[in-house]
Structure formats: structure tokens, C-alpha cells
């Protein structure tokens, strides 16, 4: 058989005591030459474990307990480790998510590619260098980058160098584990194009592991490509992307589509996927998705569903797929037939199509003079970091992280700040909060300037604006109980509350963000990422702010959890009249939530306007580039 075939793969990890985790349980698929298979799923579904098992790189304690993997007829699990060393990185290569850490920082690009060439093709000296140069050209890097060290390359260039390294062994199948997740959207588009191009030129099979539905679709456009949706260690749906994206058959896949925020879903509540992925040591008597399925019925709990073919080449692991016609799920709060059809191949941005769903504050223009006073007004704000050199640390120049930004946020309004990494959006947020002292410019909160405020005056202002950070793991002190975390801000900013008042309010807040009240006595690490983000939001709300600065609040979360957080944010905005300064690189989230959008690059605002205007009639070239780079828009 041509390419890679995986049959009935099962991976077990020995846990503490007698516990046995089964992250991958009975996975079958094939990747042919010049074919792309996208393994799609949320975190914890077993997709990375599958890839590591194929490479025979399972972590300690993990082993393959069943199944067979064939690469061009060779059984990989039967090979001796020494022979596997030749296959790994040679016939079967893998690129990883983090380009920062997958290259050795003290070796030049040529040396690292040279290592792979020496190991798999026996090349050395001038021949290796010449071949390394050819590989760099193949991945779109100039050959003068051969002697560059990883720190001299940008994130996208590093990922290209890594791909060049992996191509050195002329792989038959390339496994790409979230290859673009750490990259900016414009760079992501380039890397995806590169992978597509390499695949067709080299006739290479590509196993793409991703959590992003749009990336998966982007990469599986040709008719013999397949998308495999994984859930709880199994492939629950297997289909060509045209069929899958037009009519997903498994309720889980349908839910994944339904929870996606988009511009045309503004004002709607996003569908939610209750519950969480079952633990990898759970024992199942029926369907693995039964606990969370909106269309669940008695059989689901007792009988394990088969893998039914619902359309030619389209399989789903669901009892409902047996009848080859999927009933509408609407009575259960799922998608109606119309909505399923409404998930088009191309996201058409038609904000005005449904006037009942227009956003709460139809605040089109940029400035809002004459109307209600702004909650936040930033004018000409600049943050310059001095570059110091030499023994006496003289200032030789400045890094202009934020360079003259003016913005205004009205009461109850959501202003989104969009930009790629390094454009200064996080620095701007911190300067607004006075966590960093701005170099010049003013920040006004309800018309009062924050500049020069100290002590009590500054403290009273701090109660009016709060921040929610991106990473819910580093934003909560691991050594404090949740209750103490919530009460800390109250103790500092609401002196009128006594201890019992604070405890009472903490319980209220937990309830408001949908967490159990006993959460107060527990430590942050006992909660999942989404729950921790709820705690962070509750902490910010504790002091009754009027403005929340949300710094990428959902980008570390799975899409289903993201939907819950976005719904929570929408509810809070409605209930408390909160204004949001929403910082994000994710355009679909921005399109869903924001009233107005400001596009930022290199410390400056390039363009701002209503969401509808920015998304449909962008004026700036960079804005257009950003919008066009989003996967799924070709």
C-alpha cells in the first residue's frame, strides 16, 4: 500500500497506582501520496498522542498496546529501534508547534539541516551545504540565511527552517503538529501555502494535526483529502472536507461548528457544548459523546455506535448516522437544518442581513463627540522603552512599542484592538492601566486624566477598570485559594466591605460566572483552563469596574470553551453595562463581539471604524491583508 496506514491504534499510559489512561483507542486512517489528512479535535482528544505513537516517540510510561502502522508496506512497530531511527526524520518526518524550541539555539541553520542530511542521505561537506541551500530555497528562505542562528530568524522563518530540516530526509509522509498555532495570521497563511505547495510538488503525504476548523478546511481542499474529527481518543467522523463542512454528521462536529464565533453571528448567543471531554481513563458502555450530546437517546448509553458510511467516503461514529439521514436536532437546542446549510464554504460577511441581530450600541464612527461621554479616552499615548548600551548605560535609542495612539471607548461599548504579535497592543493595555508608565500622552477615565495620580486617587480609578489576561494559568497565583484571589482586589479597593462582606461577594461572583460556590476554598490548579478564565473574570468584576480590558482572553482556550467565555462576556456586558477594550488577533472572535475595531501595527493605529465597516470595506492595505490571510477565505 502506498503511504501511511494506521489500523486500530491503541495507546496506553500507565498512571499512578493501577490507573491506566487510554488517550488513543482504536484509530484507523490512511494517508496516501499527495494526500492531506487533517486530524481535527480539541485539546485532550488524543491527536498529538496519535502522532507521537506513529513516530514511536511516546512519553515515558506510554506504549502502543494494539494496532499496526504501515509505511509503504513496512510495519513500523516491528522495526528495531536502530532501523526506526532511519525512518524517523527520514521517511516519516514531523514538525512541531513551537518553532522557538524545536531548533537548537546554538547551531546555525546550515548545521541543523546538515545533521539531518548526514543522518539520512550520507551527505557531508560542500555537498551537504549545497543541498541545504536548495532546501532553504524550496521553503522560500534566501540561501544567505544558511549561517543564521535561530535567534536571528523570525517565527515564520524558523518554522520554514524547521520544515527544510524535515524535508532533508525526503519524507514520504510529513506529520505537522499544529504547525501554525504559534504564528501570526499573515505568517500562518504563508506557511500553509508552503505546505500545500511542497506536498503537491514532492508527492508527499501530509498528516496535519490542528484544532482550527478553518486551517483544516484550508488544507484539505482537493477531493481526495480527508478530515478526521477526533473525540476522546477515537475518530468520530471521517470525510472529504467538502462533505464535512457542508453537512457535518456527527453531533460533536456539528457542535464544533455551532460554537464558532463569526461576524454574522453577532448578538446571537453562541451555542454551547456543556460538560467536558471524558477523562482518558473513563470506561465507556456506549457512545463516548453521549454525556454531552444534544441528540442523545437510550441506545447511546448502552450500545457502542458503529462507524457508518452516511455518504460516499463520509463516515460518522453515531447511531443516528445508521439511517443515513440525520434528524434535525433543534428540539435539543442544537442546529436546525437551515443552520447546518448556513455554514458555507466561504464566510460571507453580511452584517446588515439580519437587522434584529445588530449589536447593542450602533456606534459607527470613531469619535463620538456630542454623544455620551467616553468611559476611556486615550490621546496620543506613547510608550518608548530606552535602549541602553555600554558601561554607563547611556540611552542610545528607543523602542517605540506604542507610538501615538488615540482611542475612545464609550459606555457599554466593545472596542476591539486587532494586530499581530509585537504590534504593541499588550503594552498599550498595560500603559492604560498604568502598569507601565506611558512616555507621553494622556489616558482619561470618565473625563479625568490618570497621569500623575498617585496613592488614593489612583486607587479609586483602578476600581473602575480592570484587566483579564490571556493565559489563565499564569494569571492566578498558584499558592492562593480562589476565595483569597477574589477577595484581594476587594480588600484593596473596596475598604467599606468587611471580611464577611467580601466572602459573601466572592460567592456571588462565583455564581455569576457559573462556578460552584465551593470553588472558593480550592486552589487554581484544580480547575480547567476555561474555569480558570472564569475565575480571572470574576476577580476583575469583584471591584465593580466600568471598563474591562480583555487581553486575548480566549486565545489559550478550546473553541467550545471559548464560546462559553464569549457568552459570559456578552451576558456581563448586558447585565452590568460594561465597556470592553478587547485585544485580540483572532478576527472571527473580534467580528462576533466587537462594536468597533481598531487595527494596530508597529505601535500605531492604522485604521478604525465600526466592525461592519472594517470587515466589509477595509481601507487600509494591511487590514485587507489581515482579512485575506484568515484561513478559509480563499
Amino acid at each position, binding site marked *: 500500500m502506498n503511504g501511511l496506514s494506521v489500523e486500530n491504534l491503541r495507546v496506553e499510559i500507565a498512571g499512578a497506582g493501577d490507573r491506566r489512561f487510554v488517550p488513543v483507542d482504536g484509530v484507523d486512517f490512511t494517508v496516501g501520496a499527495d494526500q492531506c489528512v487533517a486530524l481535527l479535535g480539541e485539546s485532550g482528544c488524543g491527536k498529538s498522542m496519535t502522532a507521537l505513537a506513529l513516530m514511536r516517540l511516546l512519553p515515558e510510561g506510554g506504549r502502543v498496546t494494539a494496532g499496526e502502522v504501515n509505511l509503504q508496506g513496512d510495519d513500523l512497530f516491528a522495526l528495531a529501534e536502530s532501523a526506526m531511527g532511519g525512518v524517523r526524520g527520514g521517511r516519516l518526518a514531523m514538525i512541531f508547534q513551537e518553532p522557538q524550541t524545536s531548533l537548537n539555539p546554538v547551531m546555525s541553520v546550515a548545521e541543523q539541516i546538515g545533521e539531518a542530511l548526514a543522518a539520512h542521505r550520507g551527505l557531508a561537506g560542500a555537498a551537504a551545504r549545497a543541498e541545504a541551500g536548495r532546501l532553504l530555497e524550496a521553503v522560500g528562505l534566501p540561501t544567505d540565511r544558511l549561517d543564521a542562528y535561530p535567534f536571528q530568524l523570525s517565527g515564520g522563518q524558523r518554522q520554514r527552517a524547521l520544515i527544510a530540516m524535515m524535508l532533508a530526509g525526503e519524507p514520504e509522509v510529513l506529520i505537522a503538529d499544529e504547525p501554525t498555532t504559534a504564528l501570526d495570521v499573515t505568517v500562518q497563511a504563508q506557511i500553509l501555502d508552503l505546505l500545500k505547495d511542497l506536498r503537491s510538488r514532492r508527492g508527499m503525504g501530509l498528516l496535519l494535526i490542528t484544532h482550527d476548523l478553518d486551517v483544516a478546511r484550508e488544507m484539505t481542499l482537493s477531493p481526495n483529502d480527508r478530515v478526521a474529527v477526533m473525540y476522546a481518543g477515537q475518530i468520530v467522523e471521517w470525510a472529504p472536507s467538502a462533505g464535512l463542512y457542508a453537512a457535518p454528521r456527527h453531533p460533536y462536529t456539528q457542535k464544533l461548528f455551532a460554537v464558532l464565533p463569526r461576524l454574522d453571528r453577532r448578538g446571537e448567543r453562541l451555542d454551547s457544548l456543556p460538560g467536558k471531554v471524558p477523562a482518558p481513563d473513563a470506561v465507556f458502555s456506549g457512545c463516548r459523546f453521549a454525556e454531552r450530546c444534544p441528540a442523545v437517546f437510550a441506545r447511546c448509553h448502552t450500545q457502542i455506535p458503529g462507524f457508518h458510511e452516511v455518504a460516499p467516503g463520509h463516515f460518522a461514529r453515531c447511531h443516528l448516522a445508521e439511517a443515513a439521514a440525520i434528524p434535525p436536532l433543534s428540539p435539543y437546542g442544537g442546529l436546525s437544518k437551515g443552520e447546518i446549510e448556513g455554514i458555507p464554504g466561504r464566510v460571507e460577511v453580511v452584517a446588515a442581513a439580519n437587522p434584529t441581530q445588530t449589536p447593542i450600541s450602533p456606534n459607527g464612527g470613531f469619535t463620538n463627540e456630542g454623544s455620551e461621554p467616553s468611559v476611556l479616552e486615550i490621546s496620543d499615548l506613547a510608550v518608548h522603552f530606552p535602549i541602553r548600551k555600554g558601561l554607563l548605560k547611556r540611552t542610545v535609542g528607543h523602542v517605540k512599542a506604542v507610538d501615538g495612539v488615540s482611542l475612545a471607548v464609550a459606555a457599554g461599548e466593545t472596542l476591539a484592538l486587532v494586530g499581530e504579535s509585537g504590534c504593541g497592543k499588550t503594552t498599550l493595555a498595560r500603559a492604560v492601566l498604568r*502598569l507601565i508608565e506611558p512616555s507621553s500622552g494622556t489616558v482619561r477615565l470618565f473625563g479625568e486624566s490618570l497621569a500623575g495620580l498617585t496613592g488614593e486617587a489612583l486607587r479609586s480609578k483602578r476600581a473602575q477598570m480592570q*484587566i483579564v489576561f490571556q493565559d489563565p494559568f499564569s*494569571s*492566578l*497565583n498558584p*499558592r*492562593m485559594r480562589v476565595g483569597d484571589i477574589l477577595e*484581594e482586589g476587594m480588600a484593596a479597593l473596596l475598604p467599606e466591605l468587611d471580611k464577611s462582606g467580601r466572602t459573601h461577594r466572592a460567592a456571588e461572583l462565583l455564581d455569576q460566572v457559573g462556578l460552584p460556590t465551593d470553588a472558593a476554598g480550592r486552589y487554581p490548579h484544580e480547575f480547567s483552563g476555561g474555569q480558570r478564565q472564569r475565575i*480571572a473574570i470574576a476577580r476583575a468584576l469583584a471591584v465593580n469596574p466600568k471598563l474591562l480590558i480583555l487581553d486575548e482572553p480566549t486565545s489559550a482556550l478550546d473553541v467550545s470553551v471559548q464560546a462559553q467565555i464569549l457568552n459570559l462576556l456578552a451576558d456581563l456586558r448586558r447585565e452590568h453595562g460594561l465597556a470592553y477594550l478587547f485585544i485580540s488577533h483572532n478576527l472571527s472572535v473580534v467580528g462576533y463581539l466587537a462594536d468597533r475595531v481598531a487595527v494596530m501595527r508597529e505601535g500605531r493605529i492604522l485604521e478604525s471604524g465600526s466592525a461592519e465597516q472594517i470587515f466589509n470595506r477595509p481601507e487600509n492595505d494591511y487590514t485587507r491583508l489581515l482579512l485575506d490571510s484568515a484561513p478559509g477565505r480563499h
Partner: protein
Amino acid sequence: MNFKPVLLWSDALILLLLAVVAAGVWLLRHNETFRAPLRQVLASRMGSATALILAVYVGIGLLDSLHYVERLPDEPGKAAQYSGEVKSVLDKLLTPLREHVEKTYSAPFATHLYAKETMTGPDGRELRDYPRLKHGGAHLADPDTEFWPDVLKRGGLGVLGGMVFWALLVFPLWKRGRAHSALAWTLLCVLVVTGLLVALAPHYHVLGTDKVGQDVLYLSLKSVRTGLLIGTLTTLVVLPLGLGLGIAAGYFGGRVDDVIQYLYTTLNSIPGVLLIAAAVLVVQVQIEAHPELFDTAAARADMRLLALCGILGLTGWTGLARLLRAETLKLRELEFVQAARAFGVSRMRILARHLLPNVMHLVLITVVIDFSGLVLAEAVLSYVGVGVDPAMISFGNMINGARLELAREPVVWWQLVAAFLFMFVLVLAANLFADQVRDALDPKAKGRA
């Protein structure tokens, strides 16, 4: 009253420390965040066993810290006179060991001296042989035949005594189901060893004698207090300096950081032993210049010990401070610290609530490693001649005394082995106990154990 209590400076510090710890425990007795980790440590096998061993050491040290002077026999017409020799309760308990002084070296359990002497035999002829000891095995008429039966009999009784005592202690607890098996077994070990020593030590030199014939077991037990003092007091000097300066340098940055870095690089660039030697000599000169301040030799030795602790602490905080500075530099950029700043939480509170608890694991590990290092440093410094007072009994002086005799043939090994054994058990117990404490304080480690 035929004795008068004496409060040396170090005793006062120990009592103060005890009072602070006791008050802290009393105040925090209902605090769940304090009790839960404590309970976890004491419930774990390793935690309870090492805690017991540490308690035994601390007990010995405390008994050795209750000092007094004895009243001399009254002379009519004069006020009460007190002896110039300061003794401790431990000395009183170990009176037989203290008073059984031989002429010079003797091996453990020996009945004869380790060196030949010229003696006059019963028939009047002079001969060179190993003389009988004055105390070790003196009750035996014929050591060659009676030695083993006597040792076995006494040893057996001692073991039996220890076991009976253990059974009396543990049995009531066992019936209530509260005895912890690891704790019970450790207690058994401790009691059996104690029983053995109580039965044998008054009649034999269990660990031999040193050059001037002092019982090595007595020396080892007396060294415990010195070792604990040096470890604890120095740590108490190091901690506020290292913690305060390290975290302040990392968190505040800028000028504060510059000054603190300047301080510790300067301190580090001076060879440590040289700095300590110079400081000790200065202190020594001061002590000599003011004899009126110290009424006994013990008080002088004690002051010199305290000075040594202070000097070791003042020169030893740099490592901890540098480690904490680096960790704080990382932590202060983390978002929970930023969030606290956004709440306007005061700087001191951020340092205390957010930074300090998150570096405590580093502090604990460093302190325990330093503790063993300090006990050893004392030995090194005694060798150079700038350690504790030569008259003070300490592991350092024991090792120092044993050093030269290692070259002797046959070798005198027992002094070194005794010091090693006592230090090894102390340091190992402290290390394992600290591991348990660290795990208990780490919320993420819960359920992993």
C-alpha cells in the same frame, strides 16, 4: 538551693525562638492553611519518622541549653560561692560519661588503653603493655572471658527495657487506632538505641575515648547543641537578608537592584574564609579586651559562637539572594502579579502574598542544603583556627582533633565516625523532612503522594 541558673546569650536566643514558635503555633492553631500542610507532613511516613528524629536532636540540644552553676560548700561568714564551671542539664544526666575520663585514646568497648605504657608488674618487673582502663570495663575481673557475656547481658537488658518502654507508650495509642506505623517503628528504633546506651554507656566507652580520654559519646551528644545552634542561628541571620534583599532586587529593579547587586558581588569577590577569619579575629580581640563582660569561660565561648553565627550569616546570604532575585525577576512579569498591581494592591502585600509564597520552595531547599554546609563549615573554620572556641565541644573540633590521628597506625577512627554518624543522621533527617514540607506546601502536589 544548691545551684543557680545561668542564662547564656545563646540560651536566651533559643528560649526567645522557642517562645516565638510556640506563640506562632498557638495563634495559627485554628488556621486551616497552616494546619492542613502540617497534618499532611505528620501523616506521611517519611514526615513523621524524620520529625521524630529531629525532635530527639532538638530535645538533646534543649537539655544542653539549660545551664546552671553549682553552689560551692558554704564557708562561714561569707556569701554563697558558686563554681566557675557552667554545666547544663544534659551534663547532669550524663554525669557518668562526663566523669569517666581515661588517660588517652581507647577504642569503642575497649577494656584496655590504646597505647602501651611502662608498668610495674605484680612481681616487681617492669613491662610494657596496654594498661586496663580506669572506667571502661573496670568492673570485669577478667576481661578476656567475662567481656562478651557481660556486654550481651547488659545490652539485652537495655534492648528489652527499650521495647517495654515502647510498648507502654505505643500500646494505648494503638488501641485507639491513632498510632502511625512508620512513627511507631522509628520510635522503637530510637528507644532501643537509647536503652542500649543507657545500659552500656556507664560501664563501657561505647564510642571510645579521645586524646585526653574524654568519652566520645559524651562529646557527640554535646556537639549536637553547637551544630544546631550554628545551623539555626546562621539561617536566622541569612533568611531576612537573603529574602528581603533578593526579592527587593528582583521586584523593584533599577537603582535598588544595582545597589544590592553591587553589595553581593563585592561580598562574593572577597575569599570567604579570609573574610570570616578577619571578622572572627576582630571579634576575638574585642572579647579579650573586655574580660569584665564575661564572668565564665563558658560565657566567652558562647559569645564567640554567636559571633561566628552572625559572621557566617552576614557573608552567607548572597547565594540565596541571587537565586531569589532571578526567580522574582521571572515572577514579577507573570500576570497574577500584574493583576494585583492593577488592583492597586500595595507593594509590601504583593511581595508578601504573591512573591514570597512562590519562592518558598527555593528557600526551603537552599536553607536545608546550607544547614548541612554550615555544620561542615564550622569544622573547616575550626581547622583554620577561627571556628568556635577550642574549649567548646563541637563536631568541628571533634573532626579537627581526629584529623591528625588518621595518619596513625593503627588508625584512630572512632572520633571521626562518631561525628560523621551524628551529623549524617541529623542532616539526612533535616533534608527528608524539608522535602515533605515542600510537597505539603505545594498545592499542586496534593493527591500525587
